């Protein structure tokens, strides 16, 4: 299953989930909560690894557990002042917008899922997966990286106009 290019990911997942599950259990959480928090921690870890912003020399497992612990405390502990010093380490910071809802209304989301899906994939490849224009040109079948870059800007324009249009219609209501 393609989640990351790293072939050791499967082993990391298998080894770390039970450890996170035990920690969540100790804090009073159930299996569903453990699974969700673990997945959030994995995504945050993968993003930081991708962006070279891990800023700490620990194993992937230790990092994921550190993030999962912070997420768990936020979710399950009524008194969040119980956070220990480890979890205050800025290297384990959770992205500000991680749990915020999408910044647009439903019509834009629907548009992106349907008419704009190819654009969305292109923008994801560049801005989220940090693929090079060379790779993007190859996987999206553009003749040159320059063509792919121009297409990326066209996509940005298309989605941006959709957002502006929806906002305009909202103001009319």
């Amino acid at each position, binding site marked *: 299953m393609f989640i990351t290019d790293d072939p050791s990911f499967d082993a990391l997942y298998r080894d770390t989930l039970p450890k996170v599950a035990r920690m969540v259990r100790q804090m009073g959480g159930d299996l569903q909560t453990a699974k969700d928090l673990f997945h959030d921690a994995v*995504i945050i870890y993968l993003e930081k690894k991708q962006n070279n912003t891990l800023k700490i020399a620990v194993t992937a497992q230790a990092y994921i557990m550190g993030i999962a612990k912070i997420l768990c405390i936020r979710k399950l502990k009524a008194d969040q002042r119980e956070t220990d010093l480890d979890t205050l380490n800025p290297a384990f910071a959770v992205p500000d917008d991680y749990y915020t809802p999408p910044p647009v209304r439903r019509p834009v989301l629907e548009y992106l899922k349907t008419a704009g899906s190819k654009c969305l994939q292109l923008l994801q490849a560049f801005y989220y997966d940090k693929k090079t224009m060379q790779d993007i040109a190859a996987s999206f079948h553009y003749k040159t990286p320059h063509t792919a870059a121009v297409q990326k800007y066209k996509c940005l324009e298309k989605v*941006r106009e959709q957002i502006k249009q929806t906002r305009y219609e909202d103001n009319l209501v």
Partner: protein
Amino acid sequence: MRTTLCEIQAIEQYLDNTLPVTEHLLFQARTLAAPELAEKVNAQEKVLQLVRWFSRKKKKEKLDQLFNQLMQEESFHHSITTIFT
């Protein structure tokens, strides 16, 4: 590239903080003087937030699929469920 696309590129560099300091400040001043440019910057920032939101959602769906797949394995299923019994 046509003018609009060049402007989108400039906004991208502004949001990325990859413009030289003087150009960044100049661009910032332009956004203060031109509300329509400020609106474009704001909308473009929202596009990037939206891309992150969709990407995370997609990644989470794939992780859920992996979880469901592993839970089909008896030993993995046992090792996880016994923690909660």
